[in-house]
């Protein structure tokens, strides 16, 4: 594991940039622990102060310090993406491994459902969900429902690997040695799909954070929990751009772009690492 990290750091520019971006964002989110103001409080600092030595990123029209608000927002946004990714990874793994290993009608049924979830436009679904739930819509509930909707694409990916694992000799010998399906999937097949799981985690976080930002900006989430989208929502509510309070909207936007590009670069470099063809190419580059 550490050797992989070292290799990636040494030979992969994308990975290096990704690590720097994600690391910066992580540090920023951890600073929320030492914030002098609670995240929910408003009018704790003078409103509409431009970036200055005393307020690094300025203050909002609601009298909040943009910098400290941003640390909470990033923390919540990352937690949200992580929660969705974690739950949907479990779903994708169970469905993908089972479908690939079992084959037959189980595979056909699961993959039909799977393809449906890939195709259905999710934003209107989530909007409908918000419409029904309204104020009872909590942060965790949104994460749960997005996890239930966001596993399909990765399940297909995992299934394609599981199909090839099934024909390998060690699967046969596990069957003959009397292992149950569950044991084979968890002990024998799971380690082989872990690299894919890691890289899809990044992509899934990009997807869920992107949707969360979109919903929050429209005001379709729990807007009192500070997230990046929530910050932009409040800035729009106070017409920050027109009022000239540009720092209120610019800094969250920069933070979220850094998060997306960082996560994406990590996913790309991991994919490249997994793909044997590009690994050969990389060895060639090092040798020459």
């Amino acid at each position, binding site marked *: 594991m550490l050797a992989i990290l070292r290799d990636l750091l040494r030979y992969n520019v*994308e990975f290096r940039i990704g690590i720097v971006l994600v690391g910066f964002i992580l540090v920023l989110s951890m600073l929320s622990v030492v914030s002098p103001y609670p995240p929910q409080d408003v009018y704790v600092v003078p409103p509409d102060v431009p970036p200055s030595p005393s307020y690094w990123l300025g203050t909002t029209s609601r009298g909040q310090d943009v910098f400290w608000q941003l640390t909470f927002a990033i923390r919540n946004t990352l937690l949200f993406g992580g929660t969705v990714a974690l739950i949907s990874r479990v779903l994708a793994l169970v469905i993908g491994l089972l479908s690939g290993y079992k084959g037959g009608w189980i595979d056909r049924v699961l993959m*039909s*459902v799977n*393809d*449906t*979830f*890939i*195709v*259905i*436009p*999710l*934003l*209107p*679904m989530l*909007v*409908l*969900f*918000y*419409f*029904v*739930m*309204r104020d*009872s819509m909590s942060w965790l509930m949104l994460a749960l429902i997005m996890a239930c909707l966001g596993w399909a*694409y990765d399940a297909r990916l995992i299934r394609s690997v599981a199909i090839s694992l099934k024909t390998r000799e060690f699967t046969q010998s596990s069957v003959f040695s009397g292992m149950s399906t569950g044991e084979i999937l968890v002990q024998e097949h799971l380690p082989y799909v872990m690299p894919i799981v890691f890289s899809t985690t990044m992509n899934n976080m*990009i997807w869920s*954070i*992107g*949707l969360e*930002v*979109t919903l929050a*900006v*429209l005001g*379709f989430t729990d807007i009192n929990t500070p997230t990046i989208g929530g910050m*932009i929502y409040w800035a729009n509510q106070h017409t920050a*751009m027109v009022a000239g309070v540009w720092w209120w*909207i610019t800094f969250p*936007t920069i933070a*979220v*772009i850094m998060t*997306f*590009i960082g*996560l*994406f*670069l990590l996913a*790309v470099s991991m994919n490249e690492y997994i793909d044997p*063809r590009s690994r050969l190419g990389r060895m060639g580059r090092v040798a020459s």
Partner: protein
Amino acid sequence: MSGYLAYIAKRLVQFVLVVFIGINLAYVITHATPIDPVEQSISAVTSFGNTAPEAIEQMRISLRELYGLEGSALQQYLVFWKRILRADFGPSMSAFPTPVSTLIARALPWTTGLLVVSTIVSWVLGNWLGGLAGYYQKSRALKLLGVIAMGLHPMPYYILALLLLIVFGFLWPVLPIGGGSAMNLPETWTWAFAASVLQHAILPALSLILIGVGSWFLGMRSLVSNVVTEDYVVYAELAGVDSRRVLSSYVMRNALIPQVTGLAISLGGIFNGAVITEKVFGYPGVGSLLVDAVYAGDYGLVLGVTTISILGVSIGVLVIDLLYPLLDPRVKVN
């Protein structure tokens, strides 16, 4: 030929399944939640002022009927399907008494136009440039394009639309940033109207196209860089086939096949993008309709737009699936 028919039959079954599961999801969301949508709407209406108790009771009865909350669970379910199959979502509450179906029919051409044009432009452009970048791997300009695509692809549609809005709305106001056409023009088939529609579509389309080109570019580049190492490409090059011909008929054509499947898969995501882009630029399409309907608490309209978008996206996927055999002749044989 029989392979082709089997392929089409399979796609049709999948289409029906997508619509079925999608509509059922909508049913579960609207009916299995602990919150009563009727009481929600009533409290939304009554919060604006005092309403007589009899009027509230009257409203409660008519809303329960409208939401299909009368009768047993099975009856409710059947009523739900009947409404959807007839495209009857009742009158809109926010634009009373216009029927929901009329509102959607009015908005649909805008969204369809925006989506079809921007999807085709970004798919063609992204694949063409990505193909070139995968084939001519030494080109500096194409490498730079790759870096830009890396930055564009993971961006959510909202953020890019917001950036475009800031650039063209505040910093360099040369393009209209709101509406579908100029306010004072009648919606008739005149050149002035068409020009105005095009001008207003530039920014919403651009935000969809930029992200789209980024994604297709990256996908195509990695596909092509894998295909060029195949034996038949090496053979063709050694045999002295013109390099442009190798690129178009040997490399691109084979790499394009997964990209067609990719288009079908990502259609739902592109539609999501259109919804938010329309809202940012005040484009009079289905997306703006949906968001405004939520703000206005218009249940019929929200449900109507959701089901129509499931149907629309599934039809789009079906059309792509049916065109697929034209590109991949293997489907006809299998």
